[in-house]
Each structure stands twice: as C-alpha cells, then as structure tokens.
C-alpha cells in the first residue's frame, strides 16, 4: 500500500516537473519576443544582454528538468507504452528553447543591420512564431491531460506556421528587392530564417503530437 502511495506522490512531483518544463518553453518564447523588441529599438544594449542572460538561464533549467523527467520515466518504468513518444516530445520541445537561446546569442554576436522599414514585419514575424510556440506548448499540455484538445491547438500551430511562412517570404522579397548591399541581404535572410525556424520546428512537433495522440487513444 505504501509502495502505491509513494508511486502516486512521485507521479504528482513528476507532473509538476513536466508542467514547469512546459512553462520554461512559454517563458523562453516571451523572453525572445522581448529581446527582439529591445534589439530593434536599441540594438545590443544592457536590456538585450539581460534578456539573453535570462534565455540562457531558462535553457539550463529546461535541460535540467528534461533530464530529471527522462531519468524518472526510465527508472520508474512509467508509461511504458508511450514512454518513447514522451521522451521524443520532451527532446523536441527542448529544442525550441535551444533555438530561442541560440537566436538571442546570434543577435548579440552578429548584430545584424535591420533597417527601420523592416522592423514592423520583423516584430510581426517574431510575435507569430512565439504564438506558434505557445500553441504547441498548449497542444503538448493537452496531450498530457486532455487529448481531445490536441487537435484544436494543433490547428492553431498550423495556422501560425503558415502565417510565419508568409511573413518571412514577404520579408525576404523585401530584402532582396531593396538596394541593400548583397551581404546585408544575405545576413537579413539568415536571421529571418532563424526566427522562422521556431515555427517550422513547432509544426514538426505538432505533426508528431497528432500521431502520439492517435497511439494514446487506441
């Protein structure tokens, strides 16, 4: 009896850890959005550095949580039929934090020149990819608690990803049809693609989640 009570207690702790891990992804998205806003307004400044530092901390915390959760899932042989799927999901979600952290670092190191007329669309792109990340986090939460809702959140992910594609294409067309030097055009394209990568990654996770959900409902 005490063994089963211990199992329920451990389960509750693990549930909280998974929730905290998902919170980290949402936070890292918001930090990234704030960092881009700051960068577009003031370039690499103290506030931007503070955001980058925060992104680093979130990334470290996310990694720790992921490792702890994975270890416990294995050690306690939990959810044997879905363990592989959950581990894969956690790895993929962790990659979203890695991308936001890496992007902050790239902006800090490479400090791309972004002309003012691009700012609104750059911000729009960032907000859209962060909304996309948010939707995939919601979808992941639903996978754990309410699989019926996964489909709804996934459709939002698809919507934001398409939107992000449209914005990034528009930005690329703008850049390459402008008078900017070639090297700046390529630099801009690189950063547009790096930001858009978040939405693409979120879409891949949503696709995988759809399959995991079918498996869970069998």
């Amino acid at each position, binding site marked *: 009896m005490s063994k089963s009570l211990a*199992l329920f207690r451990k*389960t509750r702790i693990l*549930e909280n850890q998974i929730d905290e891990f998902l919170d980290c992804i949402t936070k890292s998205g918001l930090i990234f959005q704030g960092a881009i806003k700051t960068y577009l307004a003031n370039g690499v400044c103290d506030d931007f550095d503070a955001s980058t530092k925060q992104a680093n901390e979130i990334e470290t915390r996310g990694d720790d949580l992921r490792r702890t959760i994975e270890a416990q899932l294995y050690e306690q*042989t*939990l*959810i044997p039929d879905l363990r592989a799927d959950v581990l894969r999901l956690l790895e993929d979600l962790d990659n979203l934090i890695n991308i936001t952290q890496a992007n902050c670092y790239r902006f800090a190191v490479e400090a791309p020149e972004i002309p003012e007329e691009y700012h609104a669309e750059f911000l729009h792109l960032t907000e859209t990819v962060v909304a996309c990340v948010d939707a995939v986090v919601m979808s992941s939460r639903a996978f*754990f608690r309410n699989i019926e809702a996964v489909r709804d959140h996934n459709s939002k992910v698809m919507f934001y990803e398409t939107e992000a594609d449209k914005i990034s294409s528009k930005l690329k067309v703008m850049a390459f049809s402008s008078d900017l030097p070639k090297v700046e055009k390529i630099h801009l394209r690189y950063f547009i693609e790096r930001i858009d990568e978040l939405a693409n990654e979120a879409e891949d996770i949503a696709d995988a989640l759809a399959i995991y959900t079918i498996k869970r409902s*069998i």
Partner: protein
Amino acid sequence: MDIVILLFLTSGLFLGWSLGANDAANVFGTAVGTRMVQFTTAAIVCSIFVILGAVISGAGAAHTLGKLGSVNALAGSFVAAFSAALTVYWMTRASLPVSTSQAIVGAIIGWNLFSGSITDSNALFKILGTWVACPLLAGLIAAPLYKLTQRILKWAQFHLLRLDAYTRAALIFAGAFGSYSLGANNIANVMGVFLPVSPFTDFDLGGFATFTGAQQLFLIGAIAIGVGVFTYSKRVMLTVGDGLMPLSPVAAWVVVIAHSIVLFLFASEGLENLLANAGLPTIPLVPVSSSQAVVGAVVGIGILKGGKNIDWKILGNISAGWVTTPIISAVVCFVALFFVQNVFNQQVFREVSYSLTPTAMERVVEMGLPAEDLKVIEGKTYNNASAFRAAVLEQTLLSKSQETKVLYYAEIFHTKITPNKLTKSDREWLGEERVKILDSLSGKSFAYKWQLSDALSRDSDQWKLLEQTTVNKVYNKQINSRLDFVYRTFSVIERPR
C-alpha cells in the same frame, strides 16, 4: 496419507501447473507484457487470489462437472486429469488454442464411454452452451465497459502520468479479481475429477469454521496453479501481450475486468443464491475457458472500434478448438484408461450395477412409470448404466426424465448406517435434527440411494426436497449435497471382481 493416493493426485497437480502457466497469462499477460506491472508482483497477487478463489468459491462449478460424470475410482481420476493435461500440453506446444475446461470435459466423456456410464446430456448441453455464451458475454460486457471507461477518462481528464499510476493500480486490482475468479471457476477443472474419490476429511478450524475435504483438495490444486504461475507463466505473459489486437493498458484493464466478471458469474454460488431467492433465473455454474473470455472481450472492444484490427483467423481457430479439444482429450483418456487398466492392472472405475428388483419395481409403479413394459427385465442385473439403459429402451420408449428416473431407481448403491462414522464437524454441518433422524436409522442397510433418502424423509421434513422451483433451488441444492455426503460416507463398496 497413502503414497498411492498422492501419486494419483500428481496428474491433477500437472493439470493445475499447466493451467497456472497458461491461464495466468490471461489475467496478467497484458499488464506484464507491457511492463505496467512487474512479473513478481503479478505472480504473487495471482497465486494468492487463485488460492483464495479456489478454496472459498471453488465448489459451485465443480458441482456441474460432477454431474457430467462421476469418476468413481482414483486411478480413473488420475487418467482423466492426466489426459486433459496432456491434451493441453500438446495443443499448447503445437500453438493451437486450447482450453483446460474443454480438455477436462472431453476426458470425463472418455471415462464415461470407457466405464459404460451415461453422459448426462442436460449437463453436457449446459456446459456446451456456456462455452459459446462465455466469449459472447465477455464481449457484451467489455464493449459498454470500454465505452464507459472512455467517457469517464474524458470527463476526469487525468494527467497522462496519473492515468498511468491509476491504470497500474487498477490492473493489479483487476488481476486480483481475475485470479480469484480463475481460481473459483477453474479449480473444478483441476481437482473436480478427484472430488468423488477425495481422500481428505473435513476438519474443524478452532470451532468457528470447517475446512472441508473439497477445500483441502482445492487448496492443493490451487498451490499447483500458483507454482505454474511462478515457474512458467512469465514467458507466456510476455508473448500474450497483443496477439489478437494491440491494446492500450486501459483497454487491457477492461479486458481483464470483463473476463473476470464472466468467470465470476459462472462460478459464484453467492450470486446464484441471490438470483434464486429473488425468483430470477440463475446462471449455470460451469467451468468456462478464461482464454475464450479474454478473446471475447478483446473482440467486443475490436468490433466497437470498427473491427479493422481484429485477426479473424484466430477466432476461427478458437471455434475449431471447441470441437477438437474435447474429442482429442476423450480419445486420449479412453486409450489411457484401457492401458492403465490392462497393463498396470489398476481399477479405473468402480462398477455400478443396475437392477429392477421387486422393491425397485414397486417404486417404479408408484411413480407412474410404465412398469408393465419393464417386467421382462425385472430381477436382471446389469453391470453398467449403458447396458441397463439399452435393455430398458429395448422394452419401451421413455422420455428423457422418465429414463433418468428409471436409472435412479435401479442404480444399486449399498449403504449401511453406522453413525460413529460422523465427525463432530460433519454433525454440525448436517444439523442436529438431521443427525437425529440419521441416528434413528442406525444399523439399517439399504440397496438403493432412494431407499435411504425415503427413510430419511419419512418422519421429518428436514431431509425432504422441495418442489423444483427457482426459489427452492438453493435449498434443494443444500439438501442434495448433504444427501450425497451421506451416500458417500455410509456406502458399502463391493470389492471389484
């Protein structure tokens, strides 16, 4: 205890072992196969509850098996159990679906044929009917239960991990219930044939309960099942996982619960009493196949989901098993009985003689049976039921119930009442009033069971059977089991010729 008796019991233990090795997989297979429950936990829970089920509720299904044919010599019981075990073992080795219940029924029919006993067609059809009803009922229980579980889970919205923890606990609970039902329902397969020749006597447990001979026999059989679970079932459990259709742990739980309910329904005397007391039709207490209950439940869920995932070929094989298993087992038993009787010189059945003596004829006339037609065979003695029945049917055409009555009135069963044969616990079980009547017959001998029954119920209602209605079923069953006990206890066995 005589070493020979122990030796003869080994075939029952072999059958118990193979039941434990194979059928425990039905209860815990998916749970262990999917690593939701550790094998050691499963084996411990399974063994404990199989033993509890067998000892506490094992008697009900054994009764029906006993009606099919009463194997009346220890060597005969040995051969019947051994033939059934051998059939189960062979068919398992050949990867054919097999049921212990069907094997043992086949073996009993084989014994009936060999000993010239009559297979009670009512009991046989009752058993055959339940074989078909068992998977159907399991499917009918599993489908709505699955739907209900899905609804509850949708409403409760448990976290995946919490659901996992609940499912583990539920699988262990369902496994315990399943094991209890398996023990209650299937112990009759393992030890049922030894009941009429049981060497065990009842003993008192500190004055508050009696540990009957049947329960002692069932305990030994259940321990053999437990050994089978521990020694051999792991391999089967790990492969049983998703043979027929892939199942999620929650669906696996539904399957185990449905299987357990079906086995429990076909074994529960408590439920039978409840239904009978309410005047409702009762469920026959028959040993059914746990494998087929599982298959029925899985197919029930499969059909609910559109039937795309079901392997229908396996279903065909299972239906074929209904026919092949009892036939193979009957043939093996018949051949083995011949061998044991003629090569090892063992008495595999006790001859039961039938004779319409003038006393029996009087009774036949009293009961309004066509006595005139039977005059030709009056006084003649027949050495087995088949020969007697053939002689009777040669003279006159009787209905099924008339035939049963004539057989009952003509069956010679010598008894002599010597009350010191009864132990304290026997007396308590029979009841003070009934024992008093029995004591009053002290020193008297009877040639027929009905004579003794008549003598017992002549001066008191205590031994009288009531009219055969659903409400009276339970009472009559109690009286009959006491009468059977009296016949067995005071029987004077004639030495075999």
